[in-house]
């Protein structure tokens, strides 16, 4: 009893204003009844409380019976001892009272809860309404945008239409012009022909005139006729000479064709030789490749026979047999061999490239750059995942804020689906993270090892310096005594000093073969990270969820975050920020 009172009292006090109306409402039947009772039973002293007014000396019996009735209707045992008739059963009455009180407290608590829920819902409602208005604005905006775009589209379309019209007009114009040109050309040709006819007539006439005039001038004066260049006399024109002319002409043509054929033949043989040479070369180039097709061809003996035939043909005077079938076979075989060669070359290329990559893989040690590159990549992935989750959440939110009930139901399904997908993604993400963690571990291990080694080195160095110092002092002492060896000694010390300096300059590199500029610093901050990793986890939690509004969603997600080992992730993030 004392427990819940201590709890409830501050609550009541804090929410007394809110609770009061409820309580009054809840108490309304009682108060009503009390009112009734008060009316029916006028009380002398109604000063203390409600209850005092309810029961007086006079109406105690009635009150008790009323209470009994009420209790029995509420399912409590009767407060009257049944056996003794109208006598009060105190025990049961106290029990009833107690139960009533318990009930009262329970009710109060329920009421509180309900109120809190109500508050929550109220704020949710507010939020949703905000969202709703925002979205409405957005909708309005996008609608306006759409209208604007549509307008622009319309304008462009009209422009396009205009241009099309113009193009069409131009085309028509071109067509027209072409027609004009062609008509003019025909007209011109026609006129030309007419003129040429006239001109021909004139020419004819002129010719006649010139010929008929008995032109005395038209003549040839020769001292004496000269012999033909070939010494022969001119022959009469007969059918025979005509036939001979024809014959000669065909002879000329024939000889020309023959010559050309000879040239082609020559070219052909040359090409064939080249082909032959090529074939030989190919064959010699791929002796291992040659085996396979033979094996293959053993399945089809006809093919192998053919190949053998071709081989024989090749050996013999192949270019003598330039008939169709042989040519086909030859080209086929060449083509086949060429394909083989191509495959072979491709294979070689692949091998070369593979060999190249293999050479890269030979270095088992992951260099620091690679490591960093990898972490960078992973971080980028994390970022991307976060982005995606955020957008998904926003989408969910938007879907939730939709006021339509049926769509809400529908969207619930989507939501579930979405959540599932999200979880899937989370799983992937976790996996990645685990890998990352592993890598990080190896990295820190290496760093620790480095630190240890460094320490050992420092110790060594200290010891060595001490030794050096001691020996130097000893040297100094001896130097004073033995001067002849001074030069030698000093040189020696110089050498040593130089060596130590060089060693100092060159820090021990354990992590990577490539010279890292400050491995010591890295190890330092790595250890810092591992120590301080727990604290920033909490700090970074809210940062991760900036902008996520939906309460339920955040709760859900934070749970999953916690499930998936948020702290490690945050540690990673922290580490990412530190360098």
């Amino acid at each position, binding site marked *: 009893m004392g427990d819940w009172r201590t709890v409830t009292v501050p609550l009541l006090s804090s929410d007394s204003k809110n609770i009061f109306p409820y309580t009054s409402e809840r108490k309304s039947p009682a108060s009503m009844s009390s009112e009734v009772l008060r009316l029916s039973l006028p009380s002398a002293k109604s000063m203390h409380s409600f209850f005092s007014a309810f029961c007086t000396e006079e109406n105690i019996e009635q009150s008790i019976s009323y209470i009994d009735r009420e209790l029995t209707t509420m399912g409590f045992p009767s407060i009257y001892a049944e056996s003794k008739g109208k006598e009060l059963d105190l025990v049961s009455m106290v029990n009833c009272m107690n139960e009533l009180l318990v009930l009262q407290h329970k009710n109060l608590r329920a009421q509180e809860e309900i109120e809190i829920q109500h508050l929550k819902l109220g704020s949710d409602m507010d939020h949703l309404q905000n969202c709703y208005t925002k979205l409405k604005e957005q909708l309005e905006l996008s609608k306006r945008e759409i209208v604007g775009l549509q307008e622009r589209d319309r304008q462009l379309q009209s422009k396009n239409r205009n241009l099309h019209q113009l193009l069409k007009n131009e085309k028509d114009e071109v067509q027209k012009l072409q027609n004009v040109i062609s008509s003019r050309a025909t007209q011109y040709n026609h006129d030309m022909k007419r003129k040429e006819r006239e001109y021909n007539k004139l020419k004819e006439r002129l010719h006649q005139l010139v010929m008929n005039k008995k032109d005395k*001038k*038209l003549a040839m004066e*020769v001292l004496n*006729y000269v012999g033909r*260049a070939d010494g022969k006399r001119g022959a009469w024109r007969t059918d025979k000479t005509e036939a001979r002319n024809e014959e000669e002409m065909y002879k000329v043509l024939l000889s*020309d064709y023959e010559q050309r054929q000879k040239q082609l033949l020559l070219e052909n043989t040359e090409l064939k030789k080249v082909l032959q040479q090529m074939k030989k070369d190919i064959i010699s180039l791929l002796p291992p490749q040659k085996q396979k097709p033979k094996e293959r061809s053993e399945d089809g003996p006809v093919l192998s026979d053919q190949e053998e035939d071709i081989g024989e043909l090749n050996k013999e005077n192949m270019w003598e047999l330039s008939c169709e079938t042989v040519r086909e076979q030859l080209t086929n075989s060449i083509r086949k061999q060429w394909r083989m060669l191509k495959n072979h070359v491709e294979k070689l290329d692949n091998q070369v490239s593979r060999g190249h990559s293999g050479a890269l893989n030979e270095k088992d040690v992951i260099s620091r750059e690679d490591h960093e590159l990898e972490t960078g990549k992973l971080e980028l992935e994390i970022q991307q995942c976060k982005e995606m989750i955020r957008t998904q959440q926003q989408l969910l939110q938007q879907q939730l804020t939709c006021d339509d009930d049926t769509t809400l139901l529908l969207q619930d399904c989507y939501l579930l689906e979405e959540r599932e997908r999200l979880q899937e993604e989370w799983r992937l993400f976790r996996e990645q993270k685990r890998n990352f963690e592993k890598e990080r571990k190896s990295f820190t291990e290496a760093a620790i090892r480095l630190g240890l080694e460094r320490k050992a080195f420092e110790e060594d160095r200290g010891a060595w310096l001490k030794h050096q110092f001691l020996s130097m002092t000893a040297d100094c002492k001896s130097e004073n005594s033995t001067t002849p060896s001074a030069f030698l000694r000093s040189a020696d010390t110089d050498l040593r000093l130089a060596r130590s300096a060089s060693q100092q300059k060159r820090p021990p590199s354990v992590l990577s073969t490539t010279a890292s500029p400050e491995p010591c610093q890295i190890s330092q901050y790595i250890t810092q990270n591992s120590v301080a990793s727990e604290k920033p986890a909490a700090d970074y939690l809210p940062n991760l969820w900036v902008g996520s509004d939906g309460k339920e969603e955040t709760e859900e997600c934070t749970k999953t975050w916690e499930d998936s080992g948020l702290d490690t992730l945050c540690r990673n993030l922290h580490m990412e920020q530190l360098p």
Partner: protein
Amino acid sequence: MNFSELFKLSGLLGRFSPDGKCLASCVQHRLVVRDASTLQILHLYTCTDQIQYIEWSSDSQFILCAMYKRGLVQVWSLEQPDWHCRIDEGSAGLVASCWSPDGRHILNTTEFHLRITVWSLCTKSVSYIKYPKACQQGVAFTKDGRYMAVAERRDCKDFISIFVCRNWQLLRHFDTETQDLFGIEWAPNGCVLAAWDTCLEYKVLLYSLDGRLLSSYRAYEWPLGIKSIAWSPSSQFLAIGSFDEKVRILNHVTWKKITELEHPAVITNKKTIVYKEVEKSPTLGTERLSFPPTRALASSLFSTQSKYDICQVPVSLNYIKPVADKANPKVGIGMLAFSADNCFLATKNDNIPNAVWIWDIRKLKLAVVLEQLYSIQCFQWDPCQPRLAVCTGSSRVYLWSPAGCVVVKVPGEGDFQIVSLSWHSSGDSMLLLSKDHFCVCYLEREEVK
């Protein structure tokens, strides 16, 4: 390299005889025949009027002198200096005259292309070929001199007649699918005849000797088309220069285009050597010239005033924007020629008038560009080796060979503006022609590789 003194000349009429022994040149109405090596005057003939055209017969026996204004052709014999022949075309007029390949017939084209008269020096016979087409290259003989192709125009259609030169018999007569045939040219092997259409339409037709159409090629449709055409000496390639500043090369097997050689104003290919002619002070020596005859030059031509510099690519050439509203615009490939060994092709793009482009045919790549100070007047390949002679209307002659290139100034006072040149058939000497003078340039044989 040695130069002869300058001789008088008129009408750019100076020719080496086909056998390479003589050199004919005209001064007004006089024809001078000299020994090609000593330049001593062998014969001197006097024509009735100023000579407008001369041509050696194929056997170097006769020289034809045409006086178009009078419609007159005079023929002189080298063996019999007192022999002469005079052909008068009378009122029909004369616009062109040439020897038949046998050197015994003269083909005269009358005014308005009414007919071609074939005069025989052996008999009294005169033949006419009617309806010859008035075009740039309307008559073409095969290299062996057996056949002649004549472009004809009858009834508004183009035809080609192929004659046997020996007896002037018509061998084939066929119409061509051309709008307005512009030129015909035999392949050096005498078996394929290329005929091309007017520049309004890009069209090349290839006919066999027996009149079959072997192939036709058309690169594009509307813009101005073919400007010049050249067969390679091996008949393997047909190079077609066109107004779009490109040369297209067809092969002789499929008659399809092998490649397109562009002539951009900016040379960017690192493998192309660009020689740029630069003026220089005469105090600088010529030792740096890379062509083999350098040493001889240095001794004889100390006053050379320009030289070649090798430019670093990219080089932008002097580009003249063609005037669009004039006929026959100065744009496109106006000159092209294969070297005797088929390995090089020299071209000139008319809107980059100062540059000669030399293409390596084996690689089908631009090998060399020569950029001159003045516009190219004429270039010609050495008939024996890959060596190109170029003249630009200055007193310098430019030689290019795969080994390098060189500028040579013709010695002597006065202005000797070389506008044309022609190689001796042996490739040992060159005739350099200006408007009113000529000289012979002897290239030393030992320096010829």
